[in-house]
C-alpha cells in the first residue's frame, strides 16, 4: 500500500492498543513499569520514524518491507532501552551489550509486533472498509472531494497586467466602452 503520514501514525497508534493492554497487565503483575514504558518508547520511536524518515523514503510499501522495518525498529528500540534503561533493575541487562535479562523487552517487542500486525491485517479492514484505499487513514468511507467542495474554476491572484482579460478591460474606465452604458436598477431596487 501507499500509506500517508497520517495513515502511518493512525495505524501505529491503533495497532498498539493490544500491546499496551498486555504491557499494562505485565507491569501491574510484575510491579515493573519497564513493560509499559517499553511500549511507550516503541510508539514514540515509531511516530518519529513515520514523520521524519518513512514519509520521505517510502512511498509504496510492499509487504516484505513491513518485515524489514520491524527488524530495523527492533534494533533501534533495543538501543534506546540500553541507553534509557527503563523499568526496575532486572527488567533489562544494564550492560551496553546484549545480556541474559534482555529477553524481557525482546519478547515483549516481538509479541507486540505480532499483535499489532494481526490487528492491522485482520481487524482494521473489517472496521474501516476503505482504509487501504485511504492510505491507511481512518477516514469515513467517502469521496476524496465531495462535489460541493470542488474548487471554483477561477481564483484571483496578483498578475502583472490587471487588465489582461476582456471582462477586466470592459469594466475598467481606462478602456472606453464602444457603446453608452445602459443604466439598470441597483441590486436593492424593487424588481
Amino acid at each position, binding site marked *: *500500500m*501507499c500509506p*500517508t503520514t497520517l*495513515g502511518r501514525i493512525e495505524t501505529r497508534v491503533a495497532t498498539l492498543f493490544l500491546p499496551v493492554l498486555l504491557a499494562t497487565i505485565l507491569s501491574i503483575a510484575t510491579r515493573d513499569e519497564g513493560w509499559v514504558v517499553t511500549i511507550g518508547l516503541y510508539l514514540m520511536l515509531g511516530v518519529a520514524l513515520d514523520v521524519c524518515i518513512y514519509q520521505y523514503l517510502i*512511498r*509504496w510499501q*510492499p*509487504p*516484505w518491507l513491513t*518485515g524489514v522495518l520491524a527488524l530495523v525498529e527492533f534494533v533501534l528500540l533495543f538501543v534506546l532501552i540500553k541507553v534509557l534503561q527503563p523499568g526496575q533493575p532486572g527488567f533489562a541487562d544494564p550492560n551496553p551489550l546484549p545480556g541474559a535479562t534482555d529477553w524481557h523487552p525482546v519478547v515483549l517487542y516481538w509479541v507486540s509486533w505480532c499483535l499489532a500486525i494481526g490487528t492491522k*491485517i*485482520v481487524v482494521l*479492514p*473489517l*472496521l474501516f*472498509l*476503505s*482504509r*487501504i*484505499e*485511504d*492510505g491507511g*487513514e481512518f477516514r*469515513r*468511507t*467517502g*469521496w*476524496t*472531494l*465531495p*462535489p460541493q467542495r*470542488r*474548487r471554483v*474554476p477561477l481564483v484571483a491572484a496578483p498578475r502583472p497586467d490587471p487588465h489582461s482579460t476582456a471582462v477586466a478591460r470592459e469594466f475598467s474606465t481606462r478602456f472606453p466602452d464602444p457603446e453608452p452604458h445602459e443604466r439598470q436598477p441597483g441590486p436593492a431596487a424593487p424588481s
Partner: protein
Amino acid sequence: MTPEDTTIAVVGDGFGSLLVYATAIYVGFRPEQIAVYGPTPYAVATYAGHAGNLGQTVLRSESESHFLPADWPTFAQLDAWSRRSPAPLLRSIRRRYNPGLAEILTEARTVEDRLGLRARRIPKRIGWLHRELDPEPHFLIYGEDELLLGRARHVAIALGHGPVSFPRVLAQAREDPELRERIVQAYEPKTYRDGGRYVVIGAGIASVNEWANALEAGAKVISLLRNPAPEEQDLNTPRCFFEAYGIDAFQELTFEQRVAFLGAILKGTSPRRRAWIEIVEEGIAQDRFDQLIGEVDEAKPGPAGLSVHVSSRHGPAPGWLDVTGVVCGTGFVRSCLATPLVRRLVDSYGLQVEDGRLVLRSNCGVPGLDLPESRLCAMGLLANSVVPHGDTIAGLKYIARRFVADCVEAEQLRERPLGSRLRMQLSLARAASGAIRRTRESEQLA
C-alpha cells in the same frame, strides 16, 4: 412484468454489479433492497468469455483486488488457506502474486451465490433511465423494449467496456465476408494453426498473450507496433493511484488535466511475464517471431488468405505481408458514446462529453441527474476521469464502497455491527476457500 421497487439498482451485470451488491449487503442493506439489471446469468460471465478467448490464466490484479466485501483476507491469504500452501503468501510478500483466473472467478461465483445475487437479477438490458422528482427523487428504469422494469432511489451505472475496437482499415476489411474470419480481435474466439502466419497488432497484455498462444500452437508471428518502444509496466495505472496519495491528487486536477494524464498512462504497456518471455525467446530463436513498427493501411485477399500493407512513420515501411490472419489486441472502444444507454442520456439530458469521456462530478455522479438523496453514479471505464483505475477490480471496489456509503447516508441505514460483518466475511471466505480448493491450481507467470 411488475416493476421492481428497490433502494439501489445497478444497471449492468458484471464485476461492478457484484461489488456494489456485496458491499451493500456487508454494510447492512437487505437483498430485496437491491436489484441488478442485465442479461448475463453471472457477474463473471462476460469477463470469463473474454478471458477464455484470450487464453488468459492469471489476473494482473494484486492480492487485495477480489470479491469479498472487506480487504481481509486478501486473495493470496485465501489461496494459501485453500491450497494449504504458503507459496501464495511468499509470492505476495515479494509482490510476485497474481490471482489465478479460475480461482478468482470461482470466488466471485461463490460470493454471488452465497449472497443471493441471482435472485436479485432482472435479466433485461436497460435502454433508458428517467429522473423523477415527485413525490420524492428516484429513477424509472426502462428496458430496451421501453417497458418499465423498475424504480430505484439510487442507481449505479456499471456497463463495462464498450464494443471491441479495430483499426479503421481492418474494420472496413472485415465487412468483406471473405476476410471477416481472418481479422479478429484478441477478445474474440479464435484458433491458431500450426505453420500459420499471423500479425498481432499491439503490445499490451492481450497482444502478448496472443503472441504466446500463436507460438505455442506452432505458428509464426509478427508483432506490429505503432510506436517503437511501449512502456513496460505491470499495471496500466501507477500503483499509488490505487490509493489515497494518487486519487486525492488526481481529483485536484481539472477535467482537462485529468484527461491528459489518462491519455499518458493508458497508452499500451507490455507487461513482462516469465513464461511469455521464454515462449517469445524460443520463437525468436526458431525464426518464428519478429516485431515490426508500422500500421496496416490496406488489406485484401491474398495467397495465404490475407495480404496487408504496412506503412511506418518511424523508418522504412515493411510493405505488403502475406498472412493467415490478423489479430488486433486493440482493446475496446473507449468512447462513452459507444454505449447506447449513455448516448441516449447524453442526448436527452444534454450531458457534457469531452474527448469521448462523460464529464462526471467528483463523486462519479452524473451532473444534473445526481442528487445526494438520490444518487446516479457511474462506474468502470465511464468513471476513470474521476478514479484513474476505475475500470479495474480495485477501482470498481473503490467506487462501489463510496457509492454504497452515500446510499447508507441518504437512507440513514443502521449499519451491520462488527460481529455480524466478521461472521459474514468469514463465512464467505470459508465457502470461497472450499470452492477454490476444488479448482485446478493456476500456474503463476510472474
